[in-house]
Each structure stands twice: as structure tokens, then as C-alpha cells.
């Protein structure tokens, strides 16, 4: 809300600088987002008097003027294009050398052959009013030569009013906040309607058919009006508050909305058939051309204000074009109603018509404002547009409801705040916010939760309790905790002590991030860059993974921000590819990145989240160096990473099996599933490594020839981490090693060779390391040799050469029997 200080000062005295006031309001919860100075961008603009206005000799659209800006000073000759000027008026004069908004500088110029010493300013040129055609005509009392900034300059606070404080969306409401902050007194506006003649009742009747959604409707009738522009000062004030002036009648309703927070609507009474207003829901098929000249079909739940013929306005949201007050309107009906906030909110959203007025209705209205708003509007219309107001008003519920009484326990509030404030101290603080308090009655109960039965207090508690009598505008105060906040707010949050928790500590719980952080530390230490990518991806991303647009397991946004980000990712791969492509465009084709993140799918109709590690390798396996040749990445790089990672994190060993098959995504011959072999003997599939299919790379617009993707299921990995890792003591005897070279068919998977060796090697075989792989002479065609180093840990008993030879022999026998292998050399 934009708050001109000149307006605010009408309601409360302010001794603070704008900046100091802004800070006080911010500390009170009315955050001031900005302080703007109107007139700060004017220099050398002063009040002048037009001495003479006569036609320009050569250009009929221009006038020549003689202007003085001080008694006895030299007169200025200024050329002017406006037609609203005449001798004797006082106007803003930009002297030669003046600066205007937009860094516009004014000098001595020649216009159509005549020298002009400066410029007469329009309201638009000064940023004061929307009028760009006419010169801004100042009050005739304005002192000659007065700098305009002193006369019309203002300071505007931009206040961020929170949704619970609709009452502060008004100059009056913010004046109350200033008073609460400074201890000053609020001056309520003096509202006196100059009524005369017959009664409002004689001119109109109001029927409310839906009292739930329109609990109160106040109307006034005015006639004999002349619609025209508002006084300059009013226009300037509305502009400063961010509302564009329209006409005196419309400006009056906007003025009331800003001043009191009460939206008011005006109808051209001549357009209201039978002088009857009916508040009802729209009928099927009804249409209304709204003020923005859009013909709208009204939905059946729309609350309208109608006459016997049809709808005139969408209640609380927008008026209709047919009853719009315009030039020539002489009779006006002022409507100041209360509408159910939810109704207005839904309607404004449904029609896309949220406005300053609907915003205020949504946040709730103080009941008494229904009448005050109507009266204030009538007062201003008569003042600015002439005419008269008929006697009295039509009011469908003229009795203001009683104030809410809210019981609170000072001790409970002090406990919540952790602050020592006595009951009397709280009473003083609340009084500053206009909240009267008194001791609670013996049988009191306290509201803990809004809309629920209050908790009865025992006599001792009741004796200590107080009652806050909540003024009608404070609709946000409903429970004891609200009073606690009000006490802290008025006292100042700065008075809350800063104290570290001294209450009991919770019991132990495992930290689910420990393992994830370990994975991240290990991989970044290994030289990989961690990335964080979007979790919303495109249907195309999923289609290339084989999840088409009908895939029932994909979770899709109903209102996606864009087609690029409309489905929750089921794999980290698409966005990792995005990282590759983006970096390739930055000429960084060598990539080793990882991401830890959630992937999503519907499982049995329920959303399920799984935590994955994704690794993407592309380009050169090692950084470019002066002493080694560049080598492209391959899946063995990714396998090595995963083997090492799983061993470090879970103490488990990975083995590889061919798969998974996925056409045009994974290379059919270069993809492997990662199987963890646990100490318990269980085998768990934990992820995969794959060289990506060239067709997929092309579809992603990647330049790289070979890209390796690896995935690890971190939830699964977490389950493999034992609570206690059984490392055991160090063997006292040295390990013994034997190297053997096994000749097998070239098509024989090495994984099976190793598995056979491990199974046959007995408990002493601690590790099997493949250190050479060879094909060619002297081996036969179709043969390969795999050289392994077998490492035996003797444990506690001495292992003799014979023991090892027996173990090696059983390995060799098993290889021969199960795989047809022979030893080489």
C-alpha cells in the first residue's frame, strides 16, 4: 500500500523523519519496502502567475504567455500549447535550467520563431496527475515564486501489509499503527453528510436475497451532481497513492477505499430500473458487460447486484458498463456493502479481476465501515461534484455487532514469549493499540484455537486472567496467542530476550544425511563436480527413457510452469545430459559430474520418492596433461568409481552382470548391472553403468562421441551399510600371493571366471585382482589369457606352501571343470 505522508498526517501527528517512521512501522510488523519522494526530481520549478495569454502570431495551436514568479521581478515570456490557461491563474513554471522527471532539462528555446524562457508544466510532466494536455492549475492562494516541491512535494511510504491485517490497507489503519508505535492519538475523520430534501428511501430500495454472502448493504442517493475532474489536490493525492484519477464521483469512492479501507461503488441511478437494487446469485446464462467493456457470461455462483431487469455489477469485484457514472450523470447511488470474503476471493479469481477493492473485501471488513464508507463517499461527492445527498441511508443491518471479548492469561503469554511482562504491563501495551482490557470474570474460558470451544479456566486461573475487548477492525485477533503477538509487537520484538534452548534434549536419532554426505565427499575428492539440476523435466526427456506420455507411473504437474518442466523426473539422466550439453556449448566437453537427488514414480497409485546417485562422464578420462596421452572415458572408469564408492561406504563388493537392455538408450554391449555381494551372502542390485547409445546422444544434441552414465540406488546402498562394520584384528602373519594366467575362450565373461575362483579358493583367499588381459600369439584363435593375482590371508594359523598350492590347485581344477580353462605357461 502506498501511503502519502501528507494524507497520513491528517489522522495522526508524526514527529519522526520519514526514514525513522519507516523503521518504526517495520519493527511493528508493517514492513516499509520503500520511501519515495514526490518532487525530489523537480528542480527550479516554482509557482508563477499568468499575466497575459494571447495567440501566437504564426502558429494557431500555440499561445504566448507573460508570467511572473515574484512581485516586481522581470517577467518571463513562455510559449505554451495548452488551451486551459487564462490570465490570472497560478501555474507551475519550470525556469530555464529546471529539471523535470525523467531527467528532462528545460532551457531557453525558440518555438515557432518565438523565444520561450522556460515552460509551463502539466500534471503529467510533473508526475502529479494523469493530465498531459492541460497545464496544472494551482490554487489561487499559492505563494508566488514558491518552489513547487515545497507546495506539492510529498513522501510516500510503500507498506507491505500482510494478509491478516486487511484493516491496515487504509490510511486510517496505518495511522492507528503509527499511534501504536509512537503513543500519539488517532483523529478519526469527521464525517458529516450535507443531507437535504427527501429521504433515500424515497429513491431506492434494496433487497438482499443472500444474506450469508452479503450480510450488510448500505446505500445512499445523491442528485444534482456535475461529473467532472476532481480538485487538483485530490488528483495529486490519489496519484501519490497509486490510483489514477477518473472523475470526481469515481475519485470519491477510490478516496474512501484508500482512506478508510472500505470499497465503495457508485451507480448511475438513471440506469437502475425501478430504483430497485437486488443482491442475488446470477441466473444461468446471464451476461454482464463489465466496466472494462468485456461482455462476460456469469457463472451460477456469482454474487451480483441487479435491478429487476438484470445484473448491474459483480458484487465487490467490478461494476457494469450500463450503470457506470460518466459525464452527464446527475443522480448517483452509493453502495457500501459487506461481502463474505471467500465469495469475493473466488469470484475475483474466477474472472481474473482482482483489484484493490476485491483485495480489501477478501481480507475482511469492519462492520461499522459499511455505513461510514457510504457517508464519507456522499460527503466527498457533494463537496467535489455539487448536488445534494438525500436524507439518511438504506441499511440492511444497521446495528454494529458487539466487540469480541478475548480472555487471556498473562502468565501463559509470558511463558510463550519467554519474556517477563506483567498483566498490568500487557494492559498498557494493548491500550496503545486501542485494545481495552479488564479483569476476567470468575467463570471465564480461554480461546486456544479459533472456531473451537474455549477451555474453561479454574477459579485461580480466572482470577489472574484478563479480557481484551477487541475493536471491530482487528479481525485478526481471535485467540490467546494472537494477544501474545500483539503484546510482543507493541512492546517491540527487540525486547524479547535472546536465550539458547535450555529445555530437555531429544533422544538419539540417526542422521539420514550422513551416508549421502560421505558419498558426496568421496566423489568430489575423486575429482567429480557435484551438480544440482531440475527435478521437473519434459515429457520428451521421459519418452527417450521409454516412459511415454501415457505411462501410468509418471507423476505429472496439472499446471506446469512450462512444457519443459512438467513431469517429475524418474531418472537423473536427462538433466545430467543437459549439464553436458550446456557445458559443451561453453567448450567444456570433458565432464565428470554427479548429482544426488530424488527420483519420483507412482507405485500402486502412491507417489514414491527414491534417492539416486547419478554420475555422468564424457570426453577425456583425465585432465589434459603434458606428459600423458589423452584417453576417452569408458565404462571401466565408472565401474571403478562405483566399486570404490560401495566398498568405502558400505564395505561391500560390487560385481557386474550384463544388462540392462534398452534400445536407443544404453549401448547394447556396454552396459552392466551393479550387484553388491554382502557379507551376509545376499546379493542386491544397486545400480548400473552404461555407455549411452549414440542415438540417445544425438537426440540430446550432445557432441560427445562416448558418454558414460552410472546410477546407484542410495536407499539400497544405505540398507547395506551394517550398523557395526566387522573389520576384525589385523592378521599377524604376512599374506601370500600367487599369480596365475588362465586361458579361456575370448567370449568367456571375466566376471564368471572371478566368481569361480572366489568360490573355489576357500576362506583364505582374500582378494582376486585381474592384472592382465591378453589375446594373440602364442594363444590360439578365439582364446584369451586373464592373469590374476590371488592373495591369501593365512589368518591365525601358519599357512604352508602346501596349503597354498592346494588352494591354487582347487581354483585351477574348478576353472578347468566349470569353464574349460587351462593354465598358461
Amino acid at each position, binding site marked *: 500500500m502506498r501511503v502519502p505522508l501528507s494524507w497520513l498526517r491528517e489522522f495522526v501527528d508524526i514527529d519522526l523523519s520519514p526514514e525513522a517512521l519507516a523503521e518504526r512501522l*517495520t*519493527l*511493528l*510488523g508493517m514492513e516499509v519496502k*520503500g520511501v519515495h519522494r514526490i518532487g525530489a526530481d523537480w528542480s527550479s520549478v516554482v509557482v508563477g502567475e499568468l499575466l497575459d495569454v494571447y495567440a501566437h502570431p504564426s502558429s494557431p495551436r500555440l499561445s504566448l504567455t507573460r508570467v511572473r514568479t515574484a512581485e516586481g521581478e522581470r517577467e518571463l515570456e513562455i510559449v505554451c500549447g495548452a488551451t486551459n490557461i487564462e490570465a490570472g491563474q497560478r501555474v507551475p513554471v519550470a525556469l530555464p535550467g529546471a529539471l523535470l522527471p525523467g531527467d528532462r532539462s528545460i532551457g531557453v528555446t525558440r518555438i515557432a520563431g518565438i523565444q520561450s524562457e522556460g515552460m509551463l508544466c502539466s500534471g503529467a510532466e510533473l508526475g502529479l496527475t494523469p493530465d498531459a494536455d492541460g497545464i496544472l492549475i494551482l490554487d489561487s492562494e499559492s505563494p508566488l515564486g514558491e518552489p513547487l516541491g515545497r507546495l506539492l512535494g510529498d513522501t510516500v511510504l510503500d507498506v507491505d501489509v*500482510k494478509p491478516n491485517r486487511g484493516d491496515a490497507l487504509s490510511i486510517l489503519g496505518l495511522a492507528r499503527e503509527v499511534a501504536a508505535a509512537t503513543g500519539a492519538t488517532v483523529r478519526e475523520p469527521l464525517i458529516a453528510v450535507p443531507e437535504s430534501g427527501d429521504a433515500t428511501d424515497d429513491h431506492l430500495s434494496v433487497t438482499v436475497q443472500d444474506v450469508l454472502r452479503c450480510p450488510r448493504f448500505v446505500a445512499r442517493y445523491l442528485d444534482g451532481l456535475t461529473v467532472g475532474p476532481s480538485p487538483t489536490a485530490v488528483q495529486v493525492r490519489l496519484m501519490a497513492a497509486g490510483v489514477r484519477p477518473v472523475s470526481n464521483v469515481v475519485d470519491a469512492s477510490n478516496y474512501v477505499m484508500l482512506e478508510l479501507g472500505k470499497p465503495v461503488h457508485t451507480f448511475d441511478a438513471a440506469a437502475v430500473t425501478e430504483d430497485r437494487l437486488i443482491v442475488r446469485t446470477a441466473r444461468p446464462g446471464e451476461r454482464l458487460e463489465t466496466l472494462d467493456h468485456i461482455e462476460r457470461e456469469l457463472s451460477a455462483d456469482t454474487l451480483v447486484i441487479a435491478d429487476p431487469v438484470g445484473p448491474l455489477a459483480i458484487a465487490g469485484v467490478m461494476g457494469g458498463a450500463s450503470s457506470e457514472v460518466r459525464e452527464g450523470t446527475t443522480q448517483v447511488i452509493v453502495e457500501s456493502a459487506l461481502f463474505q*470474503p471467500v465469495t469475493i476471493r473466488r469470484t475475483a479469481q474466477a474472472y481474473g479481476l482482482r483489484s484493490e477493492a476485491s483485495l480489501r473485501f477478501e481480507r475482511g471488513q469492519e462492520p461499522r465501515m459499511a455505513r461510514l464508507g457510504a457517508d464519507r463517499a456522499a460527503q466527498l461527492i457533494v463537496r467535489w461534484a455539487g448536488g445534494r445527498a438525500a436524507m439518511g441511508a438504506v441499511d440492511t443491518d444497521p446495528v454494529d455487532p458487539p466487540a469480541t471479548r478475548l480472555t487471556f492469561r498473562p502468565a501463559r503469554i509470558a*511463558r*510463550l*514469549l*519467554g*519474556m517477563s511482562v506483567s498483566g498490568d504491563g500487557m494492559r498498557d501495551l494493548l491500550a496503545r493499540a486501542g485494545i481495552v482490557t479488564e479483569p476476567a470474570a470468575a467463570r471465564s474460558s480461554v480461546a486456544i*484455537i479459533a472456531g473451537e470451544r474455549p477451555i474453561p479456566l479454574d477459579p485461580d486461573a480466572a482470577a489472574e486472567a484478563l479480557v481484551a475487548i477487541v475493536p471491530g477492525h482487528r479481525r485478526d485477533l481471535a*485467540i490467546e*496467542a494472537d494477544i501474545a*503477538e500483539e503484546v*510482543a*509487537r507493541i512492546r517491540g*520484538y527487540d525486547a*524479547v*530476550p*535472546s*536465550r*539458547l*534452548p*535450555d*529445555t*530437555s*534434549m531429544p533422544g538419539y*536419532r540417526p542422521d*539420514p544425511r550422513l551416508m549421502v554426505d560421505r558419498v*558426496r*565427499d568421496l*566423489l568430489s575428492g*575423486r*575429482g*567429480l*563436480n*557435484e551438480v*544440482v*539440476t531440475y*527435478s*521437473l523435466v519434459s515429457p520428451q526427456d521421459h519418452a527417450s527413457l521409454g516412459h511415454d506420455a501415457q505411462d*501410468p507411473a509418471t507423476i505429472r*504437474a*496439472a*499446471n506446469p*510452469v512450462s512444457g519443459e518442466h512438467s513431469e*517429475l523426473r524418474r531418472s537423473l539422466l536427462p538433466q545430467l545430459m543437459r549439464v553436458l550439453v550446456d*557445458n559443451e556449448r*561453453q567448450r567444456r566437453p570433458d*565432464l565428470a*559430474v554427479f548429482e544426488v*537427488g530424488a527420483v*519420483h514414480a507412482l507405485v500402486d*497409485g502412491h507417489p514414491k520418492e527414491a534417492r539416486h546417485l547419478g554420475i555422468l562422464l564424457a570426453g577425456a578420462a583425465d*585432465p*589434459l596433461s*603434458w606428459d*600423458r596421452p589423452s584417453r576417452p572415458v569408458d565404462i571401466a572408469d565408472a565401474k571403478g568409481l562405483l566399486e570404490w564408492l560401495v566398498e568405502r561406504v558400505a564395505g561391500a563388493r560390487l560385481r557386474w552382470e550384463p544388462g540392462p537392455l534398452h534400445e536407443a538408450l544404453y549401448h547394447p554391449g556396454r552396459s552392466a548391472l551393479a550387484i553388491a555381494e554382502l557379507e551376509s551372502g545376499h546379493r542386491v542390485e544397486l545400480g548400473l553403468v552404461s555407455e549411452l547409445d549414440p542415438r540417445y546422444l544425438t537426440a540430446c544434441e550432445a557432441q560427445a562421441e562416448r558418454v558414460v552414465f552410472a546410477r546407484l540406488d542410495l536407499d539400497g546402498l544405505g540398507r547395506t551399510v551394517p550398523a557395526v562394520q566387522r573389520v576384525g584384528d589385523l592378521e599377524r602373519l604376512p599374506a601370500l600371493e600367487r599369480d596365475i594366467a588362465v586361458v579361456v575362450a575370448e567370449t568367456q565373461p571375466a566376471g564368471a571366471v572371478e566368481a569361480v575362483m572366489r568360490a573355489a579358493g576357500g576362506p583364505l583367499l582374500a582378494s582376486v585382482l585381474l592384472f592382465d588381459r591378453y589375446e594373440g600369439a602364442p594363444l590360439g584363435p578365439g582364446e584369451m589369457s586373464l592373469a590374476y593375482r590371488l592373495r591369501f590371508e593365512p589368518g591365525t594359523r601358519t599357512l604352508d606352501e602346501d596349503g597354498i598350492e592346494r588352494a591354487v590347485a582347487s581354483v585351477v581344477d574348478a576353472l578347468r571343470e566349470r569353464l574349460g580353462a587351462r593354465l598358461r605357461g
Partner: protein
Amino acid sequence: MDLEAFAARLSALRERALQAVRETADPSSLEQVEAAYLGRKGELRTLLGGIGGLPAEDRPRVGALANPIREDVERAIAQRRERLESIALEVRLAGERLDVTLPGRPLRRGSLHPLVETEREIARFFGRYGFVVYESPEVETDERNFEALNIPADHPARDLWDTIYLQPPDSEATGTPDDGRLLLRTHTSPGQIRAMHEMSPPLRVLTPGRCYRYEAVDASHGFEFFQVEGLMVDEGTSLAHLRGLLDEFAHAMFGAARATRFRPGYYPFTEPSVAFDIGCVSCEGSGCPACGRSGWMTILGAGMVHPVVLRNGGLDPERFQGLAFGMGVDRIAMLRYAINDLRVFLANDLRFLERF
């Protein structure tokens, strides 16, 4: 041949041997010299083999004559060997000279993402006060994301959260879940409800994670962002504890001398509500465009858990009091690393990542 002549021949042998040793240039010629003089078929043996020509009474004295000579030659050989070896080593080392100004063999740089690291630092700080990470899902129900947090449908406060809703699961294929309309959580606050149902006070949890809003992307907004939510519930938890924790947190993250400001805020799920500011990290409080010339920057929202939220979490609001806070990890990271455009976090440009 008499003893004198024999002694002279021995002496001459010694001189020749020493001469030959001095003239060797490498270990192998030294070995040849050693063999030639001292070896089994060497000159000394040969000479001593001829003692049969000496008178019998002189023979016992031959040893006394020959041993010093053998020792002299052996010593000379040993010295020469040491010398030759040291020369050889020097030659080798001289030949192995490298350009020591060459750079090291480069390693991959490796880095941790600043958002995740900031999240970890936040968790590490609150971990000192007993807050343990509690993970809460990204797909939530409208009920838990809004209703249970005191934000009913059609409440004006819903304007604070532009929401991405999810398509209902295909009921034919999967059976519709009966727990209400699904959405992507707009904040980590539904974690409060889950944590209160799952654990009982004293309760201190931290829920970090990805959140979603229906928003256009600009320098300070994204439709995906990261938050950390804190919740502490106990009988005596108070607003003063909230302030104490947040003050310490600001000091830990932004320097021990950092000014802080505790002021009223508004959230439907807290009462009282708090906005927490720190002295501007850009101008240190004197006022600049980054802080709207106020000298302060808001880093998080907080408050005392609203009674209705405690009740929705299954706790008695008359007995228990809770504090809660929520912060944007992106925001904290931007302030700590002087980053003005948060889009850089999800762009994953290696030039950026390598700075961490």
C-alpha cells in the same frame, strides 16, 4: 731365489697392483684388476705358489711379508670402488636432471555444489543444538501442505504460495489414493506435521529439501528452490529461545559481529510470527541498493508454532509450545557467496562449479 729377492718381487707386485687400481675407470675394470692380482689365479697367488724355491727356514716368514701387501691392495681396491661408485652415481644424477619448473600432473579438480554445502552447513550448525535431519517428501497433499498448517482453501494467505498441483493418478489403473489432492510442496513446513506425528516432544528436527512454486524464473525466484525448516517443541520452548538460536545462527553463518534484527512477520502457521534480518552483507548496514537502503536483509521467517498446527500434529497446544523457522538455502548461499542471480545455481556451468 732368496727371501730378499722374493720380498722385492712382492713389493714390485704391490706397486704394479696399486698402479693398476689407480688407473681403473669403472667398476668392471676394477673387478678385473682385483681378479688379476688377488684372484685365485691372480699374480699374488701365483707368486706365493712359488715359495717352494725358498729355503725352508724362510718360508714361515713369507706370510708376514705378503699379508700387508694383500691388505694394502685390498684397501686400495675398496677405496677405489667407493670412489668409482660415487662418481657413477653423480654421473647418473647429473643425467637425470628435470626441468623442475614444469607443472604438476593435473588432477581433476572436483567440487561440492554450493547449495548442498550451504544446506549441510546449516544442518551442522543446528546439529550442535540437537536438531537432527528429518526428511519429508516433495510430493505432498493439499491437506498437509496447507490445511494442517492453518491455511484453509480460499484463505487470503494462499496468495503467498503459488502452487504446482499434480494430475490425479490414473484411478482406473492404480486406484486413487484417498489422502487428497496432490501437489509439489511449496515449502518444507509440511515436515512439521509429519515430524510431530512421528515423534514426541522433546522434539528438535531440521527438514531440508527441494520445494516448488508456480513462478516465473528471474534473478531471485525459481520454480524449484531449496529450504530448510526447523522445528523444536517442548513444554518450555519460547520466543526467546527462537531468538537465541537465530542470533547464534546468524553469527555462525555471517560472522560473529553480524548485527541481527528480530521483528514481527506473518505466517498462518506461527503465532507470534517473526521476520529475521541481518545487517546487510553488502554495505554492512550503511544502506545500499541490495538492502533497499535499509541496511538490513531478511534471511528467514520464523515464529512460535500456531496452536492449531500443534493440534494438527497430534500435540496438546495447552501443554506444548514450539518454535519453527524456515529459510531459503538459495538466499543464504547467495548472501554468503555474494551471488546476485540465483539462476547460476541450477545452470551447472563448470566455470561456476569449479569455484567451490
